């Protein structure tokens, strides 16, 4: 029996750490010390709880109290009130924005209700820097079990039967990939974990590495045993220092415990893991570019075949898997392929982790069974649209996914359905847009990302995306002509058809999907020179309503470019040729006399 009666779990994900969870831990420990409670209450820093919107999170167990937006200065109250007096600190409890009641535990929070955590099973539950806590949760039992009971072929059959597909984007069946790598004969093979995750707004893989690094290490060893490799490499961005440090700690502990290295658990199987650092280029997440980058070459994709499973790192057969894909593996081995394949839809099994971002109440990290609808994700788990605004679209699949609309809200999320709707699963970024978002600007934003991140190897992607961006820019400036819509569409299709790698093959998706679902918005920009969402500055016209203007001169004084003229107590006017549409006059006027159109 452990001497600790109570545990305080403090979120130590990147987001919460940025809001001082280190200081929270320190203050809690200090307060406990002062009260002589350090022997009976343990403070643990865990990985991400997912509920980043309301971070930092502190959870008290065993009574399951969930505190949100905790500040270091709250430590005193938490210890004196909750721990000593046993009274919940009301002001730090979560308030349900819809039902307006305070909720003290996860069960009562709609954010957690529809979630099922497999890949994130240990995130927010264990201390990622303590291998014993992972072991306590059946950690390394999966590798232990297969080493003593299963042949590599049997393991591959289990993974195949589970129906697990790659979570890195393409959704390739994982068991089949392992089989292909196993079949290639070679004296040396590699297991590579793709931890390059670089889509704007995505932090699924990073959170897994930060919250449960051992699950990925264990899965890599299982993969190594199955395909016949003794070396694993994790390709991770140098700009993810917390994930890197937790991985290094985990690898060190696993070696110390003999769970990595020579003769693992007396089985004769050797496996070890090293990190390879990436410089943060999006295209280096593409598996062939990733391999080139690891070899010290330029991070450019190359033509497949040969697939990495045949000729990969240092020309040896290499199995590349995504972080989240791997995190599922130990659970599948321990709970069985039948359990896993009972979750999800016909062709997409298990769960998927999504990072919710944009105009949604509960920004954060969630994991739901495949087949959950967008409506459930956005309205139940995500808590609906911020500030009671109206939902407009959701972008799934990262920068090269598509925008889906109201009409798609009841589509069950899986690989096939998202593709059929004109988007894709991608790695799991989900950006929610409301009525104030201009869809042309959204497409432009994502195109800007693709232009920046194109490696430049092929002309359609390098030049075509730039031209697409320029066309979109013209539209947002109100300078486009009607034929530009056809140009956008043609060019998009050419880029998709003729690019070498997935970046160019999918970068026009945001343009095509917004053109399809929001064509009238494009037309409004071109024909009426209006931005219906009111986001495109260049298309806005500021004017002064004569009947409201009292001539107070506030607007003229606020205008940074002197575009407003008028005598005191007389109606003012704005010179459109000077106006830079900054909105300062609109903000300053107390009489609602400035009109924006």
């Amino acid at each position, binding site marked *: 029996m452990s001497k600790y009666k109570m545990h305080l779990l403090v979120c130590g994900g990147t987001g919460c750490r940025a809001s001082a969870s280190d200081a929270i831990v320190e203050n809690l420990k200090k307060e406990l010390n002062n009260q002589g409670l350090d022997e009976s209450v343990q403070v643990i820093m865990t990985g991400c709880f997912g509920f980043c919107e309301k971070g930092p999170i502190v959870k008290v*167990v*065993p*009574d399951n109290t969930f505190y949100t937006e905790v500040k270091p200065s709250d430590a005193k109250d938490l210890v004196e009130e909750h721990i000593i007096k046993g009274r919940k600190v009301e002001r730090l409890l979560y308030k349900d924005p819809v039902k307006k009641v305070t909720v003290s535990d996860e069960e009562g929070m709609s954010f957690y209700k529809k979630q099922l955590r497999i890949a994130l099973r240990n995130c927010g539950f264990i201390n990622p820097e303590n291998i014993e806590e992972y*072991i306590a949760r059946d950690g390394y039992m999966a590798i232990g079990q297969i080493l003593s009971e299963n042949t590599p072929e049997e393991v591959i059959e289990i993974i195949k039967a589970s129906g697990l597909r790659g979570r890195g984007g393409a959704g390739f069946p994982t068991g089949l990939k392992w089989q292909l790598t196993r079949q290639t004969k070679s004296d040396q093979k590699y297991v590579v974990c793709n931890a390059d995750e670089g889509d704007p707004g995505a932090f699924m893989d990073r959170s897994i590495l930060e919250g449960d690094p051992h699950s990925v290490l264990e899965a890599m060893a299982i993969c190594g045993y199955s395909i016949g490799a003794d070396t694993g490499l994790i390709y991770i961005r140098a700009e993810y220092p917390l994930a890197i440090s937790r991985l290094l700690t985990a690898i060190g502990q696993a070696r110390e415990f*003999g769970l990595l290295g020579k003769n693992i658990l007396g089985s004769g199987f050797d496996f070890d893991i090293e990190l390879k650092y990436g410089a943060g280029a999006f295209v280096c997440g593409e598996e062939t570019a990733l391999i080139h980058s690891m070899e010290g070459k330029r991070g450019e994709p190359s033509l497949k075949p040969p697939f990495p499973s045949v000729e990969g790192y240092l020309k040896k057969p290499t199995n590349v898997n995504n972080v989240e894909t791997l995190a599922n593996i130990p659970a599948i081995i321990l709970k069985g392929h039948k359990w896993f394949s009972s979750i999800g839809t016909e062709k997409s099994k298990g769960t998927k982790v999504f990072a919710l971002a944009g105009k949604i109440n509960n920004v954060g990290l969630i994991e739901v069974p495949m087949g959950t609808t967008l409506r459930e994700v956005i309205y139940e788990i995500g808590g609906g649209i911020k500030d009671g605004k109206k939902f407009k679209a959701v972008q799934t699949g990262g920068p090269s996914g598509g925008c889906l609309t109201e009409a798609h809200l009841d589509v069950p999320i899986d690989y096939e359905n998202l593709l059929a709707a004109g988007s894709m699963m991608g790695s799991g970024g989900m950006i929610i847009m409301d009525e104030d978002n201009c869809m042309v600007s959204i497409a432009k934003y994502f195109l800007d990302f693709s232009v920046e991140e194109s490696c430049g190897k092929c002309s359609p992607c390098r030049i075509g995306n730039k031209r697409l961006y320029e066309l979109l820019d013209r539209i947002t400036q109100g300078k486009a002509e009607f034929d530009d819509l056809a140009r956008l569409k043609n060019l998009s299709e050419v880029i998709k058809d003729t690019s070498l790698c997935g970046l160019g093959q999918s970068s026009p998706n945001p343009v095509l999907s917004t053109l399809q679902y929001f064509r009238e918005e494009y037309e409004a920009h071109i024909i009426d020179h209006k931005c219906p969402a009111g986001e495109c500055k260049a298309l806005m016209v500021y004017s002064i309503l004569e009947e409201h203007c009292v001539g107070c001169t506030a607007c003229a004084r606020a205008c940074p470019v002197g575009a407003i003229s008028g005598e005191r107590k007389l109606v003012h006017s704005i010179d459109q040729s000077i106006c830079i549409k900054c909105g300062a006059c609109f903000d300053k006027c107390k009489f609602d006399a400035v009109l924006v159109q």
Partner: protein
Amino acid sequence: MNKIKSLDDLKKMRAQAQTGINVREKSIDPASRVQVKVAMATCGIASGAKEIMDFFIEQLDRRSVEAVVTQTGCMGYCYAEPTIEVTLPGQEPVVFGDVDKKRADQIIEMYIKTGELVDGIIPVNYRTIDK
């Protein structure tokens, strides 16, 4: 640290490590376990609620009863402190008053283990403390 050399070693290690996070595991599905809530407001603490809570934690563990012992605020029975609330899986909570070690021992042996009621029950007019 010695290396873990076999699956059996790993299992031993796991058993040992589990005691460390037991408190957390128990919080996952509290409804399926025996729950003991000890009233720990000023009055409760003054009448020895802390010792009673420690007693429950230690004894339930020693007697291998899967239980979650937590603390709660004042239950309003200040005349009968220390008070505790016990919820057996699938049953309505029962509140006991004037719990000393002797009564605590009875509660564990009789009510928790066999479901038989013991002295000291306070009739409750609302469902649970938190709700």
